[in-house]
């Protein structure tokens, strides 16, 4: 089934729920404005079922209605996993076989971001969702720099540690902080390394769009719900095939 529509209680009804605030005082015109926005979004009919004045100059709306757009699932672009999922054992074996040394991974939260739970979930032994983190892999050396690492610090550590891969976490996204920081980071690596020697750059965080790797100048983006096993498998895949070729 490649064409679908939202489903309220009947196939094809197209029903959705929407809420937002308009910076205008509550009035009939404000309600009409809310309906107009919903219409522009493709909702028709659009029922403004709730309008709540907030202070003097704002009104909050809830709108229900039928949206006219069709969703074509064939057109959806997603970053599908293009590497095999390995167990820690398999990953260790693959590293041993092709690198003939431990793989070095340097990670941290850059900029002013101090949300370490996500990167720790990937790196620390404890892991995430029942999977052990990269520290658990015998053939992986993990250097976790923690929170609020500056980009120069990160590059230095990568150079000192001879990192094969650099893992960066970004959780704060207000004013696109995560995008700005990631671009700054990838630019710094481009400057500090000859292209062929540059470690693999991986960023992750709950609000990243996985299709943006190229735009951000990194090799891979991981988002919400990533597990350590996926990251390990990806690293092994990229680093061992690179060596092989």
């Amino acid at each position, binding site marked *: 089934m490649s064409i679908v529509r939202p*489903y*309220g*209680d*009947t*196939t094809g009804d197209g*029903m959705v*729920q929407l809420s937002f605030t308009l910076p205008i005082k509550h009035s009939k015109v404000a309600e009409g404005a809310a309906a107009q926005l919903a219409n522009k979004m493709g909702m028709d009919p659009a*029922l*403004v*079922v*709730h309008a*709540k004045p907030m202070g003097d100059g704002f009104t909050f709306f*809830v709108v*229900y209605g039928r949206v006219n757009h069709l969703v074509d699932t064939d057109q959806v672009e997603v970053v599908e996993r293009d590497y095999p999922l390995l167990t820690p054992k398999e990953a260790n074996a693959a590293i041993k076989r092709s690198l003939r040394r431990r793989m070095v991974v340097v990670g941290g939260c850059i900029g002013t971001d101090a949300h370490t739970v996500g990167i720790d979930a990937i790196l620390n032994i404890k892991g995430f969702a029942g999977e052990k983190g990269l520290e658990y892999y015998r053939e992986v050396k993990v250097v976790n720099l923690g929170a609020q690492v500056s980009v120069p610090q990160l590059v230095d550590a990568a150079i000192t540690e001879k990192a094969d891969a650099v893992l960066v976490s970004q959780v704060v996204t207000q004013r696109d902080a995560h995008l700005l920081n990631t671009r700054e980071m990838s630019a710094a690596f481009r400057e500090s390394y000859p292209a062929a020697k540059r470690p693999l750059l991986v960023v992750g965080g709950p609000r990243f769009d996985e299709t943006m790797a190229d735009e951000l100048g990194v090799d891979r983006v991981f988002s919400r719900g990533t597990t350590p096993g996926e990251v390990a498998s990806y690293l092994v895949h990229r680093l061992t095939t690179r060596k092989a070729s």
Partner: protein
Amino acid sequence: MGKLTLDAADVRRARTLARQVGRPIVKTAQRHTTVSVERATLRLAGLSGADAEGTPWVNRLSDVVRADVGLEHGVSAPVWDALLRGEAEDLVTLAQKASAGSVTFRLPEGRDLTRARTAARKAVGKGITQIDRRRVERERMIAKVGDAPRKPWIYLIVATGDIYEDIPQAQAAAREGADVIAVIRSTGQSLLDFVPEGATREGFAGTYATQENFRLMRAALDETSRELGRYVRLTNYASGLCMPEIAALAGLERLDMMLNDSMYGILFRDINPIRTFVDQRFSRQVHARAGIIINTGEDNYLTTADAVEAAHTVTTSQLLNEYFAKEAGLEDWQLGLGHAFEIDPAVPDSFRLELAHALLARQLFPKAPLKWMPPTRHMTGDVFRGYLLDGFFNLVGALTDQGILLVGMMTEAVVTPWISDRDLALQNVRYVMDSAGKLHEDFHPAPGGFINLRAREVLGESIGLLEDIKAHDNGLLDAIADGTFGLMKRPADKGRGLEGVARKAADYYNPATEILEGDPA
């Protein structure tokens, strides 16, 4: 048990009054029959199907019988007399011929009458045996696949209007945790003086109650019950002008619970009071036999009246519903007495008032699986607020040991529930039950505190109302006539379906009643 300190004498007094007020109504019910009672009898004898216009054969046949000999004797004797006379080889053919005008009915007498009655009793007996079998089937299936894992039972509504959309939605709801599925009826069905036929796809805000829809949905839920390892119950409405027939169909198709209230039709559908009371008694006798749990409709009072001011009308109606139900043979475990979380959330202490009301119901009817209805009236288009209110409704349910919890939908004020509304609503129930389900262990309203005082106040007002009803010349009928309930005036000689009521003649005969009253299951 017993978080409230109620005066035992008050409780006894309230029950006595309910009996005194209800007794004359039962007498009246016993003295009358209705077209729907007679049609239900024919259905129990196996007559089903409809003519090309969709008019059921039971309507066709009983109309002709009535035209020929009147309703007051019951249709059974004339009908089986005609069959015995060889007018047709079976009931359907007889109905077809009768509508074509090629049969005339008479009142058999003497040996003919005896033979007609015997044949009728045999035919109807088959239907009742079928109901008995269904009951055993249910019990066996529960024993085999398992029952709902805990109380309250989670009760969810489907209401697409199309049985073929309802089925997957009901199955999905069951998979996500519903213990009871209610298929909401199309608007207007309660005023139809016939039960539609076949599978239907064109209801408004609900799906028609038909025998085939019942069958399809029960079969689908049987499948899901087996899949899930717990029996998923099915509910519909034995309400409106066809209450007795729908009760019969529910028994025949193994529905498990039915909405069935003693006064709902009168007050909210302007159905004639006598018609309602007669139909109600018969339908409850069928439910008793079928092992069906009834759900009464006290929640409806609070959708028009104020839930604080009118709290005692709920209690009063619960007491009357209990009296009528027991008189008709229902047992305590079959009494899903209704009440609801409908106090305006803006009223100070509204949550504690709800607790007081819910505890009162729990304590007055300790063995009944009370049915706890979610907020509807004060739900608005603010679906976030609605989701919160439903959570606090669920919490009252957990704190007061409700048997059946109708799951509230955040979109109550907007649409009939979407699939996601149900999913979110179940998640809400689960959170409350899992995180705070045992909070009742820590909940002890002080003997002289707010909650106890309020509960006693409501019980007192309810006793006052029952006394007031009793003081009317003609008791409950007069009280209903002069607007005691919900300010709606419903005189005994007005209202829909009155023309379908007949005072029984001395020779009135109904094999169904005979069996149901004579030989308890």
